[in-house]
């Protein structure tokens, strides 16, 4: 039975992970911004037979509050084994191009707040010489593309940070898991047309996340075929890539 803190618990993927963890008896500390939705999730997990579920309402853009959230989580669960950082925002690329402010706001949410949480978890898990830090990135972070490079860069920022963290924490038996989902059919992507085989359901991605956490995997693409797609995309020479409209 693990003690798991989930940041951004209201996201469709995180909620699906929470349900899977509850089903096997893990205890949870849920952090999210929208109090109403968080309460609804807590009720849902309760009906599904959850044991210990504690929660805190917080805006994770407030970096100064992060340490206190970890204190609260450890106090509520009696320690921590797993941290899942799942919050994020899919900014409108066109709006970001028109506004530096919007671009930086996306970095505040997707990059700075995510590495702040990962850095705090790293120090605590390094001291206890155990733990898993899992962060939801994106396949968009593998290469900058004109259609969503602000979102992609913010996710890529985190991926490189986690790579370094993994290198540092391996010696302390702490696993650092970078999760790169492809297209997932969630409220965040409701505005997109969903045709074709590339779209996955949140629960399928959640199953992959739970498995990756259990294995202490390094980098997982979800579903797995994205590893191949991104391998190809990463290896297109730049002189060709810059002419493509991706």
């Amino acid at each position, binding site marked *: 039975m693990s003690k798991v803190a989930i940041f951004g618990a209201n996201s469709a993927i995180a909620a699906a992970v929470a349900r899977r963890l509850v089903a096997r008896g893990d205890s949870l500390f849920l952090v999210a911004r929208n109090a109403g939705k968080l309460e609804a999730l807590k009720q849902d997990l309760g009906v*599904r037979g959850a044991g210990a579920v504690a929660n805190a309402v917080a805006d994770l853009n407030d970096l100064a509050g992060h340490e206190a959230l970890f204190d609260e989580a450890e106090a509520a669960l009696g320690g921590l084994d797993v941290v899942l950082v799942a919050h994020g925002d899919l900014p409108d690329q066109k709006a970001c191009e028109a506004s530096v402010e919007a671009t930086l706001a996306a970095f505040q949410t997707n990059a700075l707040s995510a590495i702040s949480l990962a850095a705090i978890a790293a120090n605590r898990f390094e001291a206890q010489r155990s733990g898993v830090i899992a962060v939801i990135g994106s396949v968009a972070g593998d290469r900058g593309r004109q259609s969503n490079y602000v979102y992609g860069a913010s996710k890529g920022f985190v991926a490189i940070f986690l790579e370094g963290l993994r290198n540092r924490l391996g010696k302390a038996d702490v696993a650092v898991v970078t999760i790169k989902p492809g297209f997932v059919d969630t409220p965040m992507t409701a505005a997109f047309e969903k045709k074709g085989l590339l779209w996955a359901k949140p629960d399928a991605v959640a199953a992959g996340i739970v498995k990756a956490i259990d294995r202490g995997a390094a980098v997982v693409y979800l579903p797995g075929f994205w590893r191949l797609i991104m391998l190809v995309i990463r290896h297109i020479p730049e002189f060709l890539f810059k002419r493509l409209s991706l």
Partner: protein
Amino acid sequence: MRRDIGSWNRVPAVVHARAWALADRSAALPELADGETGLAYGNGRSYGDVCLNPDGDLFFTRGLDKFIAFDRATGALECEAGVMLSEILDLVAPMGWFPAVTPGTRFVTVGGAIANDVHGKNHHVAGSFGHHVASFELLRSDGSRLVCSPEENANMFAATIGGLGLTGVITTARLQLARIANPFMVVEARRFRSLDEFWDLNARAEREWPYTVSWIDCTAPRGRGLLLCGAHAPAQGPLPAFSERGLAVPLDPPISLINPLSLKAFNFAYFHKPTPRGKTLQHYAPYFYPLDAIREWNRIYGRKGFYQYQCVLPPAAARAGVAEMLAAISASGAGSFLAVLKTFGARPSLGMLSFPRPGATLALDFPNHGEATESLFARLDAIVSKAGGALYPAKDARMSPEMFAASFPRAEEFSRYVDPKFSSGFWRRVHAEEPI
């Protein structure tokens, strides 16, 4: 512009302006400008255009997928309206509870089940889905939230049960579940070699069994078939092992795989498939949801899609009417891959637009062959109208306003409860007066 949203049978192919995801039951509806309309869209398992709002907006409700409360002692379940029956079953069946009424697929949302007042194989004893809804919350475009039950806001309750989503968005619902001892069914299959034989067999089966449904071979001149009876199994010792193996239709065939030849072969094989004599145990999933085991089975009809034609004929006209319909189908050479016949019980439906009413209901699937299919439907419509029957809105893509008005006598009363910012392709087609 959205071209990726359709109903289960892929007809009609339409364009929507926008789709919004509802994921927070306490949040307001998206603001729509004057003249714009929206409609709740659950899991898209209804047919035709009842769940579509061409050129308008849709509110996706699958994000409203949270359980709220479940009382294991009484079987009272409260959940958000985007929860699917499959999710309810996964939760409650191991605890000894079951939906009091379930349609032929479990991949429908609670909101969709209420809005279409769906029925199941136990209609003759349990009525339809609406009979087991204790209450629900309705969110209207003016921001108001109405708790509706048979006692509270009773008119809005009656308008929304079977109300095709036109009265607002159902956000949460309280359902009364039924007790079971285990997830297995006692089932018995009986062959019949003519429609006459069916009616006698069916009358007897309805007295003995809570669940009955018949599959009919339309390619046989006198309508042979199988009557499938079921009851939840009583408590007992060792139960069979069960695990669900799912298949999927992986791609869209360029043309329908359903043609006169495959139809005849399938129906022959199904009729003659070895069925165990007497009563046997079967898990609820293959009994209630045989097609759920084949993901995206709607693809077998190809890109042009298919039509489902489901009608109900009043008791006095049922025998002659069903025979006449089968003869018309046989004469057209069309044949239906899946023909399902079931008799409804006498329990009056609660909704102003509810489909279930005493009589026999016949459901048929036809590949979309354009004109030829439409002219067969015109002949079937004439038989249904003459018999004083009705078509099922949840399966309909083509009913005329006249037929709707004649078979849903409370339609005018219902229209007073329609939310001014809600509409659907179906509603604009059958309701003479343009909403807004």
